[in-house]
């Protein structure tokens, strides 16, 4: 029972580079989410998806792009990374009938 997996777990990149964080879930959950966690801010929603090919912005979407061509995958792309995007990124999912979200192990991203 793998649940949600994220890759890579750690990533260091330079300012201006494109980087993609991967999220894969094995539960066939319809909803998937991307959050970032920063000291003093708690978890904040970046983007979410209600189903394949349906995505929408969350609280802090600027600088990020998402896609969802398959139900099980929800990649997050930073098109031109900035130092302010240094953070821990969490992917989460839930079913269509209940509201509790289940989180992956996170990706620690450092932008130098």
């Amino acid at each position, binding site marked *: 029972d793998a649940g*949600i997996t994220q890759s890579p777990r750690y990533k260091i990149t330079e300012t201006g580079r494109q980087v993609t964080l991967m999220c894969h879930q094995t539960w066939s959950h319809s*909803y998937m*989410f991307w959050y970032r966690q920063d000291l*003093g*801010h*708690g*978890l*904040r*929603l970046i983007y*979410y998806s*209600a189903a394949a090919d349906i995505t*929408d912005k*969350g*609280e802090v979407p600027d600088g990020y792009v998402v896609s969802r061509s398959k139900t099980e995958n929800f990649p997050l792309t930073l098109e031109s990374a900035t130092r302010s995007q240094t953070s821990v990124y*969490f992917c*989460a999912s839930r079913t269509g009938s*209940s*509201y*509790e*979200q*289940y*989180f*992956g*192990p*996170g990706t620690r991203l450092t932008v130098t």
Partner: protein
Amino acid sequence: EDQVTQSPEALRLQEGESSSLNCSYTVSGLRGLFWYRQDPGKGPEFLFTLYSAGEEKEKERLKATLTKKESFLHITAPKPEDSATYLCAVQDWGYETGANNLFFGTGTRLTVIP
């Protein structure tokens, strides 16, 4: 704007010393309140969902309660393995993303000393 405030920021307890963590919230309309546990370097782990004032949920040494303005996570006779950061989140009927945005507090970091 939705607001979730957790207190205290950090709490140190002796093993067996019961206490409570607080989560105060301001929303247009509460769809649900969620408690999570987060260990260092890991993702949040779901504990409880509460939907209406007066509701209570229990799991081992943890008991979550809900009023119209706050929730408490009571920890009875804690053990060192209960050490973690406990996060509270709310879901607001009134927020434009409705069912799809959880607003998280910054957490209470609990340390249980043997």
